[in-house]
């Protein structure tokens, strides 16, 4: 392979990126050295196995990736704003739509979701950590290193350009030679292994780590959503792993899985990747449903309506999601009998989803509603997701799909469900649980600006795209000529859509500003119960101590904390005598980070088809696994004295600030 173009050249934007990457790296190194923060970074963050810190790292990384994917989106919209545009070179445009899709799903939505898993689940179920804290750190670092490997393709070697799901034969070495496609394979492969491990981790955490008095039917709905999402991960991600291995074998060793010659079958890839890919979209949307269930119940001051049907519909969604994959390629021509099965299964999914929307609305009915930032995003979600779902049912009608297939109608549809469902849901979760993790609320005024910019921007951006789809504009189109642009009316709609994308971009800037502003000026929460919550996470201080619960909470049913507060108010609550016991905790470990470093070496080597380097990396991975296997001193106990000291300090802090506000 030709590696003379190790660094990407030729485009001024890329040189700009080179310079800014170097500058930011120097700035970070300078900051860490000048303030002597290297040790702190290593001890407190890189080696941590604390689910709360891992959650925060996931969150930061996913916001960073949201920025990167957002810049891609804006570049695409600029390219399409007017006819005959050559703002981007055509190859560069292909790279950008490929990285936009890949990053938004795998390196933004997934880690944002894992951020919420980590930040919330152990606290909601009264646990001190996840089932496998070490594995949790491994998962995070695999994701992080996978994302970094994928992102350096921007400046080194060039990015993939065969679309976010890289259909063969285009993604085979014959048509996509060079490292770009390999970056895609290895970036996703490495982070995918981490995702699979997280799925296993949270299934066991939820089934086995709940505080002993919490039955399954007492679990908060967010925890249920994490369970159903994790089960779907378990079924879907092995298929992704294998598919990526097969494409690697084709590209690196001359295999014939998906090639046009030698008996290969490209459509097999399309089947396999969607057997993962379709459950994947449900994997990311189910936790958003969980967030809304918590938010709606909390801000309506009511129990969730139809708890049982909520749980049932989530499990139903995660099961039926395995029987819909062919709807991504009805046009393959599998025949009417096959298409009809998948069309019906696809439409069936709308039923449990509809059930959930009714349940949320019935929860609000006669509730005492307080409109807060999390609830705002729920308000935005309902109509957006409803329209997205309706256009989804349109696409699911197989004969009609032959008309919309791969048009901008599809683009508008899936952005409507993914932004309206997943992004709005995760943002609601972010605003809702932010005070729990950081001890202060995010500024409301800036948040409202961001909210409205996002909403208006979203509709301005995507509504025209439905029309463009009907007008015949296909996805991944690089540019269109003036006849289509002005005579057929593509240009005005495209221009409007671009304006919408910018509005969303400005909305994101407001959110970044909101976070920075609130670090200094955000409303401090000393109660630990910033929203007068219902579930266990609100019963402990914010941010929680390292062991979360000094004493494992005693749960008397659903929304236990809410009812305990009621009892405390009317004086019927019986205080249990406090008797601390030593708490068993996992020790920090540098191995996850080092192991991911070796994964990076392996991934980078295979990307450039330097086999020796790939093999060295894999040997390093195995050696770190061995090193871990030989470690026996992996945990410690927090003594009773230390727990007493910590709890006392937390209580004093709370008392002091209550005094301060009283004065």
């Amino acid at each position, binding site marked *: 392979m030709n590696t003379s173009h190790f660094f990407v050249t030729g485009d001024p934007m890329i040189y700009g990126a080179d310079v800014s990457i170097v500058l930011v790296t120097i700035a970070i190194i300078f900051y860490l050295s000048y303030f002597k923060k290297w040790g702190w970074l290593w001890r407190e963050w890189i080696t941590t196995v604390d689910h709360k810190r891992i959650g925060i790292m996931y969150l930061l990384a996913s916001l960073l990736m949201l920025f990167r994917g957002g810049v891609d989106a804006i570049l695409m919209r600029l390219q399409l704003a007017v006819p005959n545009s050559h703002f981007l070179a055509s190859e560069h445009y292909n790279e950008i739509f490929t990285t936009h899709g890949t990053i938004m799903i795998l390196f933004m939505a997934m880690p944002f979701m894992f951020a919420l898993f980590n930040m919330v689940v152990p606290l909601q179920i009264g646990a001190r950590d996840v089932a496998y804290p070490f594995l949790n750190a491994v998962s995070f670092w695999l994701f992080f290193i996978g994302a970094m490997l994928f992102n350096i393709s921007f400046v080194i070697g060039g990015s993939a350009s065969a679309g976010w799901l890289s259909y063969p034969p285009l993604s085979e070495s014959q048509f996509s030679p060079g490292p770009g496609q390999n970056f895609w394979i290895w970036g996703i492969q490495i982070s995918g292994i981490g995702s699979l491990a997280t799925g296993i981790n949270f299934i066991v955490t939820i089934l086995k780590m709940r505080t002993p008095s919490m039955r399954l039917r007492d679990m908060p709905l967010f925890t249920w959503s994490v369970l159903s999402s994790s089960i779907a991960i378990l079924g879907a991600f092995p298929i992704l*792993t294998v598919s990526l*291995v*097969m494409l690697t074998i084709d590209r690196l060793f001359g*295999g014939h899985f998906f090639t046009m010659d030698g008996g290969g079958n490209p459509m097999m890839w399309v089947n396999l990747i969607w057997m993962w890919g379709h459950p994947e979209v449900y994997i990311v949307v189910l936790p958003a449903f969980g967030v809304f269930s918590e938010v709606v119940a909390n801000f309506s001051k009511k129990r969730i309506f139809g708890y049982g049907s909520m749980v049932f519909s989530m499990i139903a969604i995660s099961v039926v999601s395995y029987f819909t994959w062919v709807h991504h390629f009805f046009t393959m021509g599998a025949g009417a009998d096959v298409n009809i099965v998948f069309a019906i299964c696809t439409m069936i999914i709308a039923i449990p989803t509809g059930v959930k929307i009714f349940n949320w609305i019935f929860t609000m009915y006669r509730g005492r509603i307080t409109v807060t930032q999390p609830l705002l995003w729920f308000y935005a979600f309902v109509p957006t997701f409803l329209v997205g779902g309706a256009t989804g049912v349109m696409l699911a009608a197989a004969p009609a799909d032959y008309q919309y297939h791969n048009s901008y109608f599809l683009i508008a549809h899936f952005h409507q469900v993914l932004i309206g469902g997943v992004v709005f849901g995760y943002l609601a979760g972010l605003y809702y649980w932010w005070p729990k993790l950081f001890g202060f609320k995010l500024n409301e005024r800036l948040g409202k600006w961001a909210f409205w910019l996002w909403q208006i921007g979203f509709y301005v951006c995507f509504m025209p795209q439905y029309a463009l789809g009907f007008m015949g504009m296909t996805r991944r189109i690089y540019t269109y000529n003036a006849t289509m642009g002005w005579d057929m009316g593509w240009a005005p709609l495209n221009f409007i859509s671009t304006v919408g994308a910018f509005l969303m971009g400005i909305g994101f800037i407001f959110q970044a500003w909101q976070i920075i502003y609130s670090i200094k000026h955000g409303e401090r929460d000393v109660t630990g119960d910033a929203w007068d919550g219902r579930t266990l996470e609100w019963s402990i201080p914010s941010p929680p101590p390292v062991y979360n619960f000094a004493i494992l909470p005693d749960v008397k049913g659903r929304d236990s904390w809410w009812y305990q507060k009621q009892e405390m108010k009317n004086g019927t609550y019986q205080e249990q005598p406090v008797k601390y016991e030593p708490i068993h905790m996992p020790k920090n470990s540098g191995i996850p980070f080092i192991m991911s470093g070796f994964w990076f070496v392996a991934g980078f080597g295979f990307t450039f088809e330097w086999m020796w380097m790939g093999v060295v990396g894999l040997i390093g991975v195995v050696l770190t696994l061995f090193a871990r296997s*030989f470690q026996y001193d992996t945990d410690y106990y927090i003594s009773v004295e230390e727990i007493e000291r910590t709890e006392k300090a937390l209580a004093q802090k709370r008392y002091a600030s209550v005094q301060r506000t009283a004065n």
Partner: protein
Amino acid sequence: MQHSIGAHVSDHDHGHVDHEGLKVLGFWIFLVTDCLLFATLFATYAVLHSHTNGGFTGKDFDVPGFIIETFVLLISSFTSGLAVLQMHKGNKKGLIGWLVITLLLGATFVGMEIHEFASMAAEGATLSKSAFLTSFFTLVGTHGLHVTFGIFWMIGLIFQVSRKGITSVTTRKISIISLYWHFLDAVWIFIFTVVYLMGVM
């Protein structure tokens, strides 16, 4: 029996989680995902097994070779079971002895498989010859890699058992690798049936 490391777990354990049991459960769930990994490879093989591109076909497999391989692996599964029985009796020497026999049998299996692959390649039946061979080498080779990994893992555990003895931690570790080993055996039964028997039939 076990007192060195695991002892502190059992002393004051009110409301604490049984960490060793938790890890075994996690490994079961991991095996579910590994099962799906193999299922995907089997499905691929099923789709591509007739795409021989005019070359090597299923009829050309070396029958005595794969039958001996099968017996070697089945016996190793049995000996790994004997190792676990010795462990439950608290017999460290017996445990290590049966583990050594298991991994020797495993190594024989891998050696035979490498020999099979090499002689196929010498006949021109390489991975890049046809889609059938690509899927064959990937499916069988993935199983072989699993066995190879298991051998190294077992060597590591033998060292740990000889140093630490039979504790709650090493018991858990041996239970897990024995699960893994039986699982590979079960997968091989499917490879034996779907790939080799149905191939030569």
